[in-house]
């Protein structure tokens, strides 16, 4: 039971990482705290719901195709948001950024309600990924294991891109000092848009991958963004590896919390976030004796 909960937690952590990684990438470069990131995740889930029956309902190929197409569509949508809206608020005070991105959340939510309605919808699990894998006396859901594996693949690709490609080097440079990037003759706007598209792709991918795991509804945006923000705060804003550690820790702790302290599982996560913030501020200020 314990091992199964850990696997569940790792899967949830991986989903959190995929969405939080986009959030932290975007913040790292543009310094925008994008509250509408959860909306992109939600759109990814709804698009997958829409596309799975069109491609091949209940099959792995149909599911993968739907998830990838959804992620690409969400990435394009993210690019449009960046060009039409967010580009105008770089450098604005945080309150303005907050108001604009929260406004986007509300607008997207209303559009989603118009298109897909207020009721929960479900995505059928691919037949190949249903069932469980028996190891010793424990049964591990294949879908969760597969999602965790897919997450690991995404992480590997991200690390390769960030470490060893020109775009990755520029991404790290812009995260470090975007003003200096401009001094080298690089158009910052291109970097901002690219990063926003990549972050949106990750949000759409996470939404699509997690679609068969639970109910999909118009409130998924705020449900997921809270967890993603907790992960990003624990991992450090703009820190991709910190987000990975934070996401897996939050996923597993939440899962274990449900097992042992069901009423406190969410509180536990906030307590950890508070502890990290206190520890970080103590580290910054230095502890005096």
């Amino acid at each position, binding site marked *: 039971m314990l091992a199964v909960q850990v696997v569940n937690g790792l899967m949830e952590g991986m989903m959190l990482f995929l969405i939080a990684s986009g959030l932290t990438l975007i913040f790292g470069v543009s310094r925008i705290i994008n509250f509408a990131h959860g909306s992109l995740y939600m759109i990814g889930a709804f698009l997958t719901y829409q596309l799975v029956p069109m491609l091949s309902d209940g099959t792995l190929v149909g599911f993968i195709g739907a998830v990838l197409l959804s992620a690409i569509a969400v990435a394009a949508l993210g690019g449009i948001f960046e060009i039409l809206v967010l580009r105008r608020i770089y450098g604005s005070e945080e309150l303005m950024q907050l108001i604009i991105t929260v406004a986007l959340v509300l607008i997207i939510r209303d559009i989603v309600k118009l298109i897909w309605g207020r009721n929960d919808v479900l995505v059928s699990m691919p037949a190949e990924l249903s069932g469980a894998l028996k190891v010793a006396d424990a049964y591990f859901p294949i879908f969760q294991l597969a999602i965790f594996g897919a997450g690991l693949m995404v992480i590997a690709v991200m690390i390769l891109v960030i470490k060893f490609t020109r775009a990755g080097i520029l991404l790290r440079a812009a995260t470090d*000092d975007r003003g*200096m990037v*401009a001094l080298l003759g690089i158009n910052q706007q291109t970097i901002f848009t690219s990063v926003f598209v990549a972050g949106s792709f990750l949000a759409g991918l996470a939404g699509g991958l997690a679609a068969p795991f639970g109910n999909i509804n118009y409130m998924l945006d705020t449900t997921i963004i809270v967890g993603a923000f907790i992960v990003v705060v624990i991992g450090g804003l703009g820190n991709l590896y910190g987000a990975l550690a934070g996401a897996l820790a939050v996923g597993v702790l939440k899962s274990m919390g449900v097992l042992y302290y069901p009423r406190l599982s969410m509180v536990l996560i906030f307590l950890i976030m508070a502890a990290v913030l206190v520890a970080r501020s103590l580290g910054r200020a230095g502890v005096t004796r």
Partner: protein
Amino acid sequence: MPPLLEARNISKAFGRFVAVAGVDLVIRKGERRALIGPNGAGKSTLLSILGGQQAGGAGGQVRFDGDDVSGLQPEDLARRGVGRTFQISRTFRKMTVAENMLASLLPRAGLIYSLSTQRLNILREQADAILTEVGLARRSGTIVDEISHGDRKRLEFGMVLATRPRLLLLDEPAAGMGLQERQELMAMMLDQVTRNGITLIFVEHDIDIVFRIADVITVMARGRVFAEGNPQEIASNKDVQDIYLGSGH
């Protein structure tokens, strides 16, 4: 021959404080121009205006190589061949020295989204070559946060060099360094500037360095040009001595 840089009536105020007030500056190709003056004279602000850091916020007109570049952003100016270093050196501090150099070479190389490792390897070789020229080959794999102040200055200079500037704006390139380190750094910079035919405008408080390097010296005080001339003319100018060293000297 038309000047490489022609700045006319450049002005910049921060609230009520006028940092630069109607400055004219004409720089010939290949010239090495020093900007000197007491603290608050407006030297660094003038460099910022010429480098695009005050884009849109300054008055007057700047022409570079015949084109009006007033109000252009730093990236536009960098692409046209205007490079800049800062009093407090700006580098990508969490990346290695080699990666910093690689990032500087990327804009000119283009194809940012290419995954070709062959082209990337060519760029790595170019990065190594520049690191050798600026004396940082041994630091190639070190994270910038872990290298010395002097090495960071060398790296920043190398990074700007990688963008192949035609005009280089150096803001106190040797600030905060010991005598020997400062002399070595300036010798290296001067060698590169000369070999690459780069026009130079630099702000420096070390008068020995100024007189050794500059063809023309512009003395600024209270946001204005107070005097201009070759090192001999400036050295013999009694008013300059007063304003630069203070009336009490």
